[in-house]
């Protein structure tokens, strides 16, 4: 009891930390609602059941890669391609995890291994911000992760339940919803003119691959072309130009 009393005086309790984390993520947990609803509804249009959508959201928990996967989903599911596509889209998490690993001093080993499973972009960003302001407590991270996780999971399942009620989605322009979401996400990743170069290289590679090969390998081709363009651009920027 004495120990609990002392720690209560010297540092905010784990519950305080958890509450602060949940409060910090609240705007993102609300903002994710339309995205998750749409993801669930579009997945249902591709023939996925609410159970499958719930499994995907709870096990994968990576919104952009799930949206891309649902877009290229076929029956039967091309699981190798979907796994590869997810891997390439989420490769950025390797760097994000490396950066976050510098701030996980207060985490036990199992807390690190479990915590990174929830490292969605918004959670990572807020955890980094907390670490920059002081110390990142595991309970604060749990507050960040918990609220966004359950909001995303619940609303994507609800989307999958009401999605099939929408008949003839093309007539409503719902097929363009994917394009609009992806354009919105691209703007979120915008880093100046270099991003436009990456987009150009990727678009050309994707259109050529699609017309020559068909199928959905254009996603991988575009990813590789975009990476090459970014590498060349960074080489060119390193060179001194007179």
């Amino acid at each position, binding site marked *: 009891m004495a120990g609990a009393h002392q720690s209560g005086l010297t540092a905010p309790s784990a519950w305080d930390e958890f509450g602060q984390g949940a409060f910090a993520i609240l705007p993102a947990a609300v903002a994710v609602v339309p995205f998750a609803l749409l993801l669930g509804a579009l997945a249902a249009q591709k023939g996925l059941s609410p159970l499958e959508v719930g499994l995907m959201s709870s096990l994968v928990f990576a919104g952009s890669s799930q949206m891309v996967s649902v877009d290229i989903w076929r029956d039967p599911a091309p699981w190798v391609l979907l796994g590869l596509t997810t*891997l390439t889209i989420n490769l950025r998490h390797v760097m*994000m*995890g490396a950066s976050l690993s510098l701030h996980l001093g207060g985490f036990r080993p199992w807390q690190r291994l479990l915590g990174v499973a929830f490292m969605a972009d918004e959670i990572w960003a807020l955890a980094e911000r907390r670490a920059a302001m002081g110390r990142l407590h595991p309970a604060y991270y749990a507050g960040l992760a918990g609220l966004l996780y359950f909001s995303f999971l619940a609303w994507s399942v609800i989307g999958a339940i009401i999605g099939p009620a929408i008949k003839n989605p093309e007539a409503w322009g719902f097929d363009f919803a994917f*394009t609009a979401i992806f354009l919105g996400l691209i703007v979120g990743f915008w880093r100046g003119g270099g991003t436009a170069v*990456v987009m150009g290289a990727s678009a050309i590679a994707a259109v050529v691959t699609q017309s020559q090969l068909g199928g959905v390998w254009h996603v991988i081709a575009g990813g590789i072309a975009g990476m090459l363009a970014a590498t060349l651009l960074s080489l060119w920027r390193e060179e001194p130009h007179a």
Partner: protein
Amino acid sequence: MKLDPANLAAIIAMALATYATRVSGLWLLRFVRVTPRMQAALDALPVAILTAVIAPSLMKGGPADMLAAAVTLVAAARLPLLAVVIVGVSSAVALRHLIG
């Protein structure tokens, strides 16, 4: 409720791929020095993939869809995602009707 084996396999593949990217960062700095070039390539990936997904369908959609995409991009620079989707979808419907 339906749980298709191929769908389950795909979901598990996606889950493993995602966790692999998230957990490997914990050890990365012990083994690899990340060069600015590697960083630039990895930073480019999300945009490259998202572009690759939509480019062929925009080409197929013709001028109406391309115009709608331009409108959507302008909207995305200043509006939240839900508003972007509403603007994008309604401009696609209107432009397809007008241009065909």
